[in-house]
């Protein structure tokens, strides 16, 4: 049979049609995937992180730990209150600060500071931390996350912009305080 090896005109056009569709689909997939991945790629370029002022040094009494709030540097118009973030500011003495994320290093619930016992306690699964952020007890495997910070023109400034999570973070590693 001769026809077996021959490609008919319609058969060729059908194959070309499938190939053409595949080509267009591949071309369209590029912008679709880039759109879907934008939240990752943008983070890789470091676009999420900025230095944010928390307040004057004098607002934080020496030897005390206070709650401070700041606005996340990366904001979309529909974010509402969710971009307002809280952090615990511990002024050890002078210009020596420790600034902790409120998120527990276990699963991210907000920890509360109890100055009387010098402990941070988590309401979710019972994690507890000492005043220097190191792990005291409970399920967390590490101490509280710390923001990188500096004092500029009398302002306490932190590098912020990403949610701290217990896994390895791409941009912010957060110093690992000595475990107790």
């Amino acid at each position, binding site marked *: 049979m001769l026809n077996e090896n021959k490609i008919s005109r319609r058969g060729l056009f059908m194959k070309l049609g499938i190939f053409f569709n595949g080509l267009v689909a591949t071309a369209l997939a590029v912008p679709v995937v880039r759109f879907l991945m934008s939240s990752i790629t943008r983070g890789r370029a470091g676009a999420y992180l900025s230095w944010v002022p928390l307040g004057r040094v004098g607002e934080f009494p020496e030897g005390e730990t206070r709650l401070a709030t700041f606005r996340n540097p990366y904001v979309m118009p529909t974010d509402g209150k969710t971009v307002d*973030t809280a952090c615990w500011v511990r002024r050890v003495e002078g210009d020596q600060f420790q600034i902790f994320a409120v998120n527990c290093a276990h699963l*991210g619930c907000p920890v509360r500071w109890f100055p009387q016992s010098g402990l941070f306690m988590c309401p979710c*699964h019972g994690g507890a931390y000492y005043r220097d952020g190191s792990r005291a007890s409970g*399920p967390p495997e590490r101490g509280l996350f710390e923001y990188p910070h500096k004092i500029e023109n009398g302002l306490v400034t932190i590098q912020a912009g990403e*949610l701290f999570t217990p896994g390895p973070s791409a941009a912010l590693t957060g110093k690992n305080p000595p475990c107790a």
Partner: protein
Amino acid sequence: MRIISQIGDWFDQRLQLAAPIREVAEHPVPRNTASWFYVFGSAALTVFLLQLVTGILLALIYVPSASEAWSSLQVLNHEVTLGWFIRALHGWGSNFMVAIVLIHMVQVFLFGAYKFPRELTWIVGVFLLLMTLGMAFSGQVLRFDQDAYWGVGIGASIASRVPIAGPVIVKLMLGGPIIAGATLSRFFALHVFVIPGMLIGFVCLHVLMVLKLGINEWPMPGRLVKRATYASEYHELTKKAGAPFVPYAIWKDLFFAAFILLAVAACALYFGPFGPTGRPDPTIIQTVPKPDYFFLWLYALLSLLPPSMETPALLIGPVLVIVGLLLLPFLSGEGEKSWRRRPIAVLTVLLIAITLGTFTHLAGFTPWSPHMSAWSGDPVPERFLHGATALQRQGALVFQAKQCRNCHSLGELGGQRGPALDSVAVRLTQDQLIRQVIQGGGNMPAYGKNLSPAETTALVAFLETLHPAGQAPARDASRDIVLRESSAHP
């Protein structure tokens, strides 16, 4: 009447659906499947339809924006006529759907319905269960309140533990670097478009297979499934001894579906809608986030697992469970169907049910969490202070002021994180008490840096009084000997 049948004929000439519909409705089923045990699948479908309708109704008012969602729920609850009821129907419908899907699954498992030739029906069912749970979780996020906000945070913290890809998954899940507007929008897209679309497709496939392969016959102990003979045996049960699905079996489905809808409505009416709790404002940290009912067992598990086990359990556990469920019909595709001859199957179901039930029960009162306001809210019961010396009373003050009470209960009030201290003096000697307070240990933080020597002395003096009347406090016997010897040989 003639006009109606003429109109009917006109449509059927064009649609040609009457014959296939009649065929589906009247397909013969084994007689003993017209049972109250066989109503859960249709009940799940009914509740799914309720969720579709109420979901669309809610979407008429709900605004999927992080800045507006919470207020739009308030509008639904308080301003729109019966908005609260539609929310309650959708919320309770979700609880009922998860419950019915689980019951359906247990019934199918115990009746051996997953065996040849219904393996694929079971596999599609496993995906339907996962999608139902996905709907339950994403729906909880759309109720954008404090619980939803911190719940997503917990989800992100779990996802971040995936090796290497963790941070990427977190950003993909949140739609950005933090939980914010993009996060809600993407959960909205999942909850309203992606998962329901897949659910509709998979439900159709699931039902189609039930119709094509026929409903599982009532399992008889000793009647074994064999690939070679099953088809003819089933043919015997349906074609020769069977009865048409409509009306022979369907009336039970209809009754149960109506009953379930009534139960959802009754719960909605009586208990009302779920939340929303406080505004999703991350600067309000006085919050105790908790997941919805069907994830409470996970919440409990996460605080009871040893820390080192947690990440492996979180990442490998679900994979094992899902793979196990998917492989089940291939591992036992033939053989005995009846639960009366499958003791391991029955025990497995019982074990899982009791485990999940226990975890859920524990999550109801979270004995692992400190009671954040016990130190200022629960006074030391008076009987512990009768006849106490000034030093011991001072110790009771230290006990409250240093938040010991947040983790230790006295008179059944206070935290349950640590042991109750009503009779601690019987268990620990003075020296052991001092050591425990100062150095901590056994999951207790060390208080050495936060207590002055005077405070420690007072606290331990108080703790030493905590023993039942008539039961002597623990004491170190060797100490007396040492003291006696040192006084004998000065």
